[in-house]
C-alpha cells in the first residue's frame, strides 16, 4: 500500500471542532472541517456574514483573542493545504464503510445537492441546541429562543426587537441580555426561574462546601465573567428578576407583553405576584441539549443526554471521537479543551502511534475543572419543580403538528403511552419538520416521562433522489468555497 495521508473529518466548526482541526493538522493529519454554517465559529464565535460589513464584531464577543488565535491558525493550515473547510454543508449521516467513513452532506441553504467526504477518522463536534419549555403564548411571533436572539445579533448584526424580555434559566441568559442591551435594545427584564445566588450559598453549606467551593475557586476566570456580567447588567440598568418565570405571553398577531410571576417552592406561581411587562420580543431559553443524531446513527453509546467519551475523547466506536457540547453542556472553554485533546488523540491514533496524555495535561486539567464547575452550575440552575403542571391543557406543546398539552396528557392517561416514543406515535408530537428537536423536552415534561435522546438516524431531511442515487465523489480534497478567514 502506498503511503497516504490519513484524513480526519471534523464535523462542526465551533470551538471544539476548530481546536480539534488545528491540533490534528499540526500533527501530520489531513483535516476536512465540515459545518452547516456559512462561516466557521460555531455558536460562540458566530461570525457576521461577510456581506454585512460589520465594523466591530468583536464588541459582541468575549475572548476575542482566543478567536483570533483559532482563526489565524485555521488560515495558516488552509493556506498550507493541511485543512480544507466545507462550509454550508449540512451533514445528514456519517456512515461506517469497510473500516473508513463516509460523511454525507447536503449543500445549504437549499439542502438538495449532495456532497460526500471520505475519511479515516471522524470527530463529532456538533455542539448543542436549545431547550425551551412551553407556556401559554410561546408560539406567538416575537417569541424567540435566547440563542436565536444572540445568533441574530452575532450573525446578522440585527436586533430582534426594540424592547426585549430575556427569560428562562441558565447562565447563557446573562450574555444574551447584556449583548442585546449593548447593541441598543431596551432589555425590560432578565427573568431567571432559578436563584443562582444559591450557587454561592449552597457552597457554604457544609455538605456542598468542599465540592462547590473547589469547583468555583478553580475557576477564577468564570467567576470574573459572572462578575463582569453583574457590572454590565447594572450599567445597562437591566432588572434581574430571580425565582420568577414568564407564565404567559400575550398579543393578538404578535407579542405585546408577558406576565411574570414569582414561583413558590412548589413550582407554582404565587398568587398576587403576577406582573405585566410590555415588550415586542421575548428571548427564552431553558438550557442546552447535546446534538447526538450523527453519533447515534453511527451506533455510539450515549451517556445520559450526551455522547459517551473516554479520557481521549474517543467514543466507543473505533475511529470516532466526540468533543464539545455534543458530549455534554459546558461552555466554550471546555469545548476548546476537549477539541484539543480529541485532535491530538486522533492524529496519533490515525498515524498508528499511541498518544501520550502527558502532552495534553494542561487541557486535561482545565477539562476536569470546567466539568466540575458546570456540574455545579447545572445544580444551581435546576428546572423549577413541577413546571410542567403549570402548562394548561390548551397550550400547544408541539408546534409543527399543533399538539396540545391536553392531548399529550390523554395519551398517557387513557391510551397507555409510557415513554416519549409512544406519546409521539399516539399524538404526532415531534413528528413534524423539527423532528422533536424543539418540543421533546416540553412533551416529555408534560407527559411526565424521561427525556431520552430521540433517535434520528437522518440528522437532516434528505431528498429521496439523493438517497436513491450513488453517493457523489469525494469532496474532501477540493478547496473551501465559502471561507474568508
Amino acid at each position: 500500500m502506498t503511503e497516504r495521508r490519513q484524513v480526519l473529518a471534523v464535523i462542526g466548526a465551533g470551538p471544539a471542532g476548530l481546536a480539534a482541526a488545528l491540533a490534528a493538522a499540526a500533527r501530520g493529519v489531513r483535516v476536512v472541517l465540515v459545518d452547516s454554517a456559512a462561516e466557521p465559529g460555531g455558536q460562540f464565535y458566530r461570525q457576521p456574514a461577510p456581506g454585512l460589513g460589520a465594523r466591530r464584531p468583536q464588541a459582541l464577543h468575549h475572548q476575542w483573542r482566543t478567536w483570533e488565535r483559532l482563526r489565524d491558525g485555521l488560515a495558516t493550515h488552509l493556506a498550507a493545504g493541511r485543512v480544507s473547510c466545507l462550509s454550508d454543508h449540512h451533514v445528514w449521516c456519517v456512515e461506517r464503510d469497510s473500516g473508513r467513513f463516509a460523511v454525507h452532506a447536503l449543500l445549504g441553504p437549499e439542502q438538495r445537492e449532495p456532497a460526500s467526504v471520505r475519511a479515516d477518522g471522524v470527530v463529532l463536534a456538533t455542539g448543542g441546541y436549545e431547550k425551551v419549555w412551553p407556556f401559554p403564548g410561546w408560539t406567538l411571533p416575537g417569541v424567540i429562543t435566547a440563542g436565536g436572539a444572540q445568533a441574530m445579533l452575532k450573525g446578522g448584526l440585527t436586533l430582534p426587537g426594540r424592547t426585549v424580555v430575556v427569560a428562562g434559566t441558565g447562565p447563557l441568559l446573562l450574555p444574551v441580555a447584556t449583548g442585546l442591551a449593548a447593541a441598543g435594545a431596551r432589555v425590560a427584564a432578565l427573568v431567571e426561574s432559578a436563584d443562582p445566588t444559591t450557587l454561592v450559598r449552597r457552597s457554604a453549606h457544609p455538605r456542598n462546601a468542599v465540592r462547590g467551593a473547589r469547583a468555583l475557586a478553580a475557576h477564577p476566570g468564570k467567576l470574573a465573567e459572572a462578575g463582569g456580567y453583574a457590572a454590565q447588567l447594572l450599567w445597562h440598568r437591566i432588572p434581574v428578576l430571580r425565582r420568577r418565570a414568564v407564565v404567559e405571553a400575550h398579543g393578538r398577531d404578535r407579542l405585546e407583553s408577558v406576565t411574570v410571576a414569582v414561583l413558590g417552592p412548589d413550582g407554582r406561581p404565587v398568587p398576587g405576584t403576577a406582573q405585566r411587562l410590555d415588550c415586542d420580543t421575548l428571548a427564552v431559553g431553558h438550557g442546552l441539549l447535546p446534538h447526538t443524531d450523527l453519533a447515534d446513527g453511527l451506533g455510539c453509546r450515549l451517556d445520559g443526554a450526551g455522547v459517551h467519551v473516554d479520557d481521549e475523547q474517543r467514543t466507543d466506536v473505533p475511529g470516532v471521537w466526540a468533543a464539545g457540547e455534543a458530549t455534554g453542556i459546558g461552555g466554550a472553554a471546555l469545548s476548546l479543551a476537549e477539541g484539543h485533546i480529541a485532535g491530538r488523540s486522533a492524529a496519533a491514533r490515525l498515524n498508528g502511534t499511541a498518544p501520550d496524555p502527558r502532552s495534553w495535561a494542561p487541557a486535561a486539567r482545565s477539562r476536569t475543572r470546567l466539568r466540575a464547575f458546570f456540574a455545579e452550575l447545572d445544580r444551581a440552575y435546576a428546572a423549577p419543580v413541577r413546571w410542567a403542571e403549570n402548562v394548561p391543557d390548551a397550550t400547544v406543546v408541539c408546534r409543527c403538528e399543533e399538539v396540545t398539552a391536553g392531548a399529550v396528557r390523554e395519551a398517557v392517561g387513557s391510551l397507555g403511552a409510557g415513554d416519549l416514543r409512544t406519546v409521539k406515535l399516539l399524538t404526532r408530537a415531534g413528528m413534524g419538520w423539527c423532528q422533536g428537536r424543539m418540543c421533546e423536552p416540553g412533551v416529555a415534561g408534560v407527559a411526565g416521562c424521561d427525556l431520552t435522546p430521540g433517535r434520528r438516524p437522518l440528522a437532516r431531511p434528505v431528498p429521496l433522489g439523493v438517497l436513491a442515487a450513488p453517493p457523489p465523489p469525494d469532496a474532501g480534497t477540493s478547496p473551501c468555497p465559502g471561507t474568508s478567514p
Partner: protein
Amino acid sequence: MTNQSSCDVVVVGAGMIGAACALYAVRAGLDVVVVDRGPVAGGTTGAGEGNLLVSDKEPGPELELALLSCRLWRGITEDRRPDDHRPPTRGNGLGPGLTPGLGRAVEYEPKGGLVVASTPGALTALTELAVGQRAAGVETVAVDANQLRELEPYLAPGLAGGVLYPQDAQVMPTLAAAHLLRASGARVETGRTVTGVLRGPDGAVRGVRTDRGDLLAPSVVNAAGTWGAEVAALAGVSLPVLPRRGFVVVTEPLPRRVRHKVYSADYVADVASDSATLQTSPVVEGTAAGPVLIGASRERVGFDRSFSLPVVRALAAGATRLFPFLEHVRAMRAYVGFRPYLPDHLPAIGPDPRAPGLFHACGHEGAGIGLATGTGHLIAQTLTGRTPDLDLTPFRPDRFAEEAAP
C-alpha cells in the same frame, strides 16, 4: 407489593395482537388483564406500518385468516347508527355492546391496494396469483397499462399493468392498539414484566409471576410478539419465534398524491421468501396525516438496531422507481422494527397441549396488524370453548416440536 388479583385471562403483551385478544375476550364475557413490561404498543406494533393486506398472500391458511380479519376490521371501524341492530358483518362474533366506529380514531382507510408489474412476464405471474386468490374469496380487478395511470396518476410510465385489490386497507398501528385496548375495557398493567408462568401440580397454568406480584388466572395468552419464545420458555415449552428486521422511511407531509397502497409484484415474492438476505421491494402509501410511508425491508440479522444506510437507500430507490416525483420529496426519518416470525411463516394461534391453559397468539411476522382481529376473535372462541371459525391446525403452537422430534 404483592398483587394477588384474579381474573379469567391474563394477556401477556399490549401490542396489536394483545389488544385484539383483549377486545374479543372481553366481548366474549371474560374478565381480562393485559400485562406489558413497557407502554402500550412499545414493541413491534409501534415500529411498523399498518397495512391490512389480502393482496400479498397466496391461497392458504394465512389468506383465510386475512379475509376473516379484513371483515372484522371493517366491523369494528364502521360507523353505525345507535338504532342499527343488524349484526355489523357476518361472522364477526361481536356482542351488541361494542362501541362502534373506531375508524377515525385508528385512522382506518379502506383505500385498496394496487400491485404493479413492470414486465409482461411479471404481469402474467401476478395475474395467475390473482386467479388463485379470487377462487379463495379475494376481490381482484385486472388493470391494464392505461388504467394504471388513471388509478395512480403519478406512477412511473412504462409499467405493464397490475391488479387492484379493493379489500386492502390501513390503520395507524399504535392508535389501533391503544384504542382497541381502551374500547375493550380490559384492565391494562403497563410497566409490569412477566417473569414466570405459574403451573399447578397437574401441569395446568395458574397465572403469571410478575416483577410486581403474581396474577392468578386459569388462562394465559402469550401475545408477546417477537419475544414470544421467551414467554413460551417461561411456561417450559418451546416456540421458535425469531426477529426479521425491517426499516421504514417516512417523508415530509404532502398533499395526497399516492392514492392506494402501491407496490411492485416482486413484493409478494419477498414476503414469502425464506432467504435471510436483504429484500427491499417497497410498499408506497400516503397516510391520513400527510407523510408517505415507504417500507419495508426484510432481513434476518437478529436484534441489530443499528442504522443501515444501504437498506434505506435501497428503499428510496425502489420507491422512486415506482413514483419518480418522490425524488424531490424529502425523507424525514427512518425507523427500525423486528417482525416476529416462525420458521414456516405462519403465526401460532390457539391452545398449547403441552401446557394446559396456555394459549399462543404470536409470530405474525409482517402481517400482525392486519391479522390481529381474526387472531383475537379465534383466541376468544378457543378461550370460551367454542369451535373456532377457522381450522387452527396449520397454526398449532406445538407443530415445530413434533418436527424436531426424531
